[in-house]
């Protein structure tokens, strides 16, 4: 008899984390477009069943008003609630950038520590299914660039569960980025009390020749590339950042100090991306020990195109990772 461990989908993991947070703390409230069950439980069903369980006072469908959603969430967070605002797709966060950048991120600092904003903004994005230029962007670098925000992206269901719970309970504003094509990917189910602390990376694969550093949607491709590279005799270590900002520099530097080579991988456009920051820090700290300059893999420096043929060309791939590793290791 094989006792297969229970598996859940990424979307389910997010749902379960919110349900646990709501059950644990009556200050947790959720708002967003179409999130209550009557409106479908969210476009991707991530909030399905929550309004039925916790009532529509706590799980509120809103008008299509991102600025007001985030603004109201920031306001209620300031007085002690723990709002989870869902922004349907990451591109729509642009509409609420003022509330995020000028308010959520800075109120604590500008009030000399008198206020806190225990807000979580959940959003999702990801290219690869033909959603085109206004529905596919990865904007984490914008947000990571703003002091006062935490930015989180999980790569598997168990992490999503543990990280989202931590994000909701964290006293700071956290942007929790989900991956739309990854919603239906399954992984081992976490224990109900599973918590993943913010700011801690994981090392899901150990190796000796090169460190692949990624987060969110790039991790599964890092694993696939590492399998392929192993056939060529190259041993990859993988660091999954889990929290993009502020990231776990200690784990990154420790790994690279061991392998002496690194490639940073993300779906976001390569230019001016998170990879540039991490690569730069590695160079600053470990320059003389490196076998080669740090490599970077990201998507093309163009808006995400609609046509599947060129969207595929735009998107970073497993092959890009392999090519970059071969390039830097010579």
């Amino acid at each position: 008899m094989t006792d297969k461990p229970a598996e859940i989908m990424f979307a389910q993991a997010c749902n379960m984390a919110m349900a646990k947070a709501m059950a644990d703390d009556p200050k947790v409230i959720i708002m967003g477009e179409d999130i209550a069950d009557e409106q479908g439980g969210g476009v991707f069903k991530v909030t399905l069943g929550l309004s039925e369980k916790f009532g529509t006072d706590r799980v509120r469908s809103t008008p299509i008003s991102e600025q007001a959603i985030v603004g109201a969430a920031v306001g209620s967070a300031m007085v002690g609630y723990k709002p989870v605002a869902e922004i349907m797709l990451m591109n729509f966060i642009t509409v609420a950038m003022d509330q995020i950048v000028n308010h959520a991120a800075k109120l604590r600092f500008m009030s000399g520590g008198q206020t806190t904003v225990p807000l979580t903004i959940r959003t999702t994005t990801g290219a690869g299914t033909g959603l085109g230029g206004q529905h596919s962007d990865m904007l984490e670098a914008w947000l990571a660039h703003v002091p006062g925000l935490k930015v989180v992206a999980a790569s598997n269901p168990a992490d999503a569960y543990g990280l989202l719970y931590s994000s909701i309970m964290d006293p700071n504003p956290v942007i929790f980025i989900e991956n739309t094509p990854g919603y239906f990917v399954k992984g081992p189910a976490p224990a109900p009390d599973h918590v993943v602390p913010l700011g801690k990376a994981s090392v899901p694969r150990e190796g000796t020749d090169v460190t692949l550093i990624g987060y969110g949607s790039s991790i599964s491709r890092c694993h696939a590339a590492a399998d392929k590279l192993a056939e060529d005799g190259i041993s990859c270590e993988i660091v999954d950042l889990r929290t993009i900002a502020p990231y776990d520099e200690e784990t990154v530097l420790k790994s690279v100090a061991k392998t002496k080579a690194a490639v940073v991988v993300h779906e976001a456009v390569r230019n001016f991306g998170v990879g540039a920051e991490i690569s730069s820090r590695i160079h600053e700290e470990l320059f003389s020990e490196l076998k080669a300059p740090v490599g970077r893999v990201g998507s093309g420096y163009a808006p995400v195109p609609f046509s599947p043929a060129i969207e595929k060309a735009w998107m970073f791939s497993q092959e890009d990772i392999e090519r970059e590793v071969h390039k830097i290791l010579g």
Partner: protein
Amino acid sequence: MAKPPRKTPAAKKSPAAKKSAPARKSSTPSKPVAKTTGGLKTPIYKATKAELMDFYEQMLLIRRFEEKAGQLYGLGLIGGFCHLYIGQEAVVTGLQSAIEPGKDSVITGYRDHGHMLACGIDPKIVMAELTGRASGISKGKGGSMHMFSVDHGFYGGHGIVGAQVSLGTGLAFAHKYKEDGGVCLAYFGDGASNQGQVYESFNMAELWQLPVVFVIENNQYAMGTSVNRSSAEDQLYRRGESFRIPGMQVDGMDVLAVRGAVEEALKDVRGGGGPVLMELKTYRYRGHSMSDPAKYRSREEVQNIREKSDPIERLKAMLMKQGVAEDELKILDKKVRKTVADAADFAEESPEPELAELYTDVLVEQY
């Protein structure tokens, strides 16, 4: 739960006259006295038989095109989000029939296929954009939600809800600045009417007396949210009142009512009266996009509207009453079906974009 919000009763026949806001004196005498919602009439258009036939053909083309797009989506030839316009044909047909191609401009959201056809754009290159081909109107880079034809004064096709209202205000600003006599039709949905930038635009448009008709296509739903669940004032034609923008509520399932009302609106705007807000009451028969299980409304609700108010059936009945033979309409239907079939063939057979196209058109110059 809090008590339900106060509701304004739906407008009757002549909404404008009955619902007029109390007349207000302008505090600054130099500013024209505010037009109230009551300022405009909404007559039914008296069409010639030839015009009726044109309307019929136009609406039929949109419907058959959208049905075909739905089929191609089902076959996997169209990807991404695809929002069909079925049920709303009278709105765009009536409105576009009244404007002057080459002079006026049009902008809308992602539910844009019908607008493009009504602008006279070749169905082939619209369908080819849906299938992501190089011959598509945006070279396959935009897709269903992002299509443009500057030649036809059609400025998109936008995926960010409500943004087109501000862009349309800019188009109207340019019409006025250039003094080219043009008017912008800026279409948006009932859901979009709750975006903040819509009201920033309303204020600026009225303040600067811009030639724009703000067109709310109220199809009762924004994805899964019905209009009365999202809107404190769900009589959307009143949404311009505090900006002194006159509003009219029109039966958007009756192409002649739409045409009649928009003529009045255009007369006012072209006469220098500043913006007008039109609310067209309509209905979408299909899901929000192709992947909508539509749990938020009943089958009966949809069925009931299809049976009682379908804009195409309504016009067909009128044509037959006027003595048009059923055969004549059948010939038309055949012609439309052929146009759509040809468009689909073209869209399937056209080549995909070259990979190098990824890096063209990003900036004006190549990098």
